[in-house]
């Protein structure tokens, strides 16, 4: 984040924003999370219901997706959340003339294929886990986490302003645009040190062998079925993060952001300019 190209009046300032390890980390995550989420929904579809505790008591699900047949022969998809029923025909429970939890566009493979979904899921789970190890080594070794992600005192005092700016779709320019803003820092830290460990540990708690090796996992999450539920909820926190992240990437200059994550080089938006103008067309 320090190197700078000579800055003249006519040329917008360009900085080397993302180091190679960060770029590798980012794109490996992008691909593996995309696949892990969709293969996870394939696995979920094998038993589209969630419970709390150690057992799956079928009469007490926290969430269940079912298909129901009316006397007229009409089939509807019904989702039950904490005892309340919702008609979700076409999306959850029944879609594309099939009885299935999540629809085919949300799962890998698209058709019902649990064993193949598991193969993909575990393959990319390993890639994600090795990527996390790689990033932690780099992030702490190079002080990237401390320098770029840990919020400073002024950062923290600036949270209310940052929230307001984000809601008004106002984005940093000049010097401020060279660093992550405080909401960015907090959300990245939350994902890296909150969601990622949580999804890995709840995933391992679903493994009977890991439960024998580390019984405290069952106590930590309140049972295997609770761990499965937390794994599912964490998955959707990732989905939420990705949705906000991608929309921010688009709003603050899509091509400039993508280029900086591919090559490292970022064109600094200038003061007073609309965020789209820093891009080359």
């Amino acid at each position: 984040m320090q190197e700078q190209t000579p800055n003249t009046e006519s040329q917008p300032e360009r900085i080397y924003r993302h180091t190679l390890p960060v770029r590798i980390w980012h794109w490996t995550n992008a691909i593996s999370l995309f696949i892990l989420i969709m293969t996870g929904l394939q696995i979920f579809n094998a038993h589209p219901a969630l419970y709390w505790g150690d057992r799956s008591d079928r009469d007490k699900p926290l969430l269940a997706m079912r298909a129901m047949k009316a006397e007229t022969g009409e089939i509807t998809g019904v989702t039950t959340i904490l005892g309340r029923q919702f008609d979700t025909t076409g999306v959850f429970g029944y879609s594309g003339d099939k009885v299935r939890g999540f629809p085919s566009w949300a799962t890998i493979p698209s058709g019902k294929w649990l064993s193949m979904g598991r193969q993909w899921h575990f393959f990319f789970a390993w890639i994600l886990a090795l990527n996390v190890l790689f990033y932690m080594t780099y992030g702490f070794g190079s002080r990237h986490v401390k320098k770029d992600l840990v919020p400073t005192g002024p950062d923290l005092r600036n949270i209310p302003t940052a929230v307001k700016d984000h809601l008004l779709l106002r984005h940093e320019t000049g010097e401020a645009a060279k660093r992550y803003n405080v909401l960015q820092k907090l959300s990245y830290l939350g994902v890296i040190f909150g969601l990622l460990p949580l999804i890995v540990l709840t995933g391992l708690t679903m493994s009977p062998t890991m439960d024998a090796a580390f019984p405290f996992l069952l106590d930590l999450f309140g049972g295997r079925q609770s761990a499965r539920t937390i794994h599912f909820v964490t998955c959707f926190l990732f989905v939420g993060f990705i949705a906000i992240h991608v929309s921010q990437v688009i709003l603050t200059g899509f091509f400039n952001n993508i280029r900086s994550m591919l090559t490292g080089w970022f064109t600094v938006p200038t003061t007073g300019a609309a965020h789209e103008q820093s891009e080359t067309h």
Partner: protein
Amino acid sequence: MNSPKPIDRRRFLSGAVQAASLLALAGCDSLSQSDWFPSLMGNTEKLTKKAQRALSSKRAMAREYTEADRSVVFPANGNSNPENPDYQAMVTKGFADWRLEIGGLVEKPASFSLAELRQMSSRTQTTRHDCVEGWSAIATWTGVKLGDLLEHVQPKPEARFIVFYCADPDEDGQKYYESVDFDEAYHPQTILAYGMNGQALPVAHGAPIRLRVERQLGYKQAKYVMKIEAVESLDAIGDGKGGYWEDQGYEWYAGI
């Protein structure tokens, strides 16, 4: 050098994202159908097995619960009443003529009646059954340790797996079978259960005996076990993958 209006740009981007995801999904489906990609992903199973075995001791015990934790309804997955006349005849006679044969690569092949198994020292454990589909159920199992039976028959040094042949056929007549290696076979919680929740094991749950391998998923817990064999390789049995579901693409190592 007029920039497109942001709204056009947004519409273009969202269209591009949709098109890219559709392409990516179609790509994933065709990769699933290919030979090379599933076979590449199959290496994960070996890595997972090695890592899990390295992280857990051979004797690490699956959690045991109390009777109060039992499931009121324990789902009987897979076959719950084998369509096999020989088996049905055994049910009628209360398994009086049933004998568990143990053979293959063993020094002293033997067979045991249900009464003989019940007279041997037993183990009772209340454990969690984790189906590969994702659900769990808890029950109390009583049976004889597989390790005790193996000490009787003395597997030969070249034997590497224990195979369980079952009485339940699928619609195509293919009978269920399963296999474990010696790490799991000699684990103290690996039992051949003849009792469930204090009663004789019901037909729906695998009478007269079913396997319990408590650190593995549900499909390893073979029901209706008729014959046990020690073997050096799984290649010649079924489609060679070591079990009924394994032959259909599920992992042989069912620890996760």
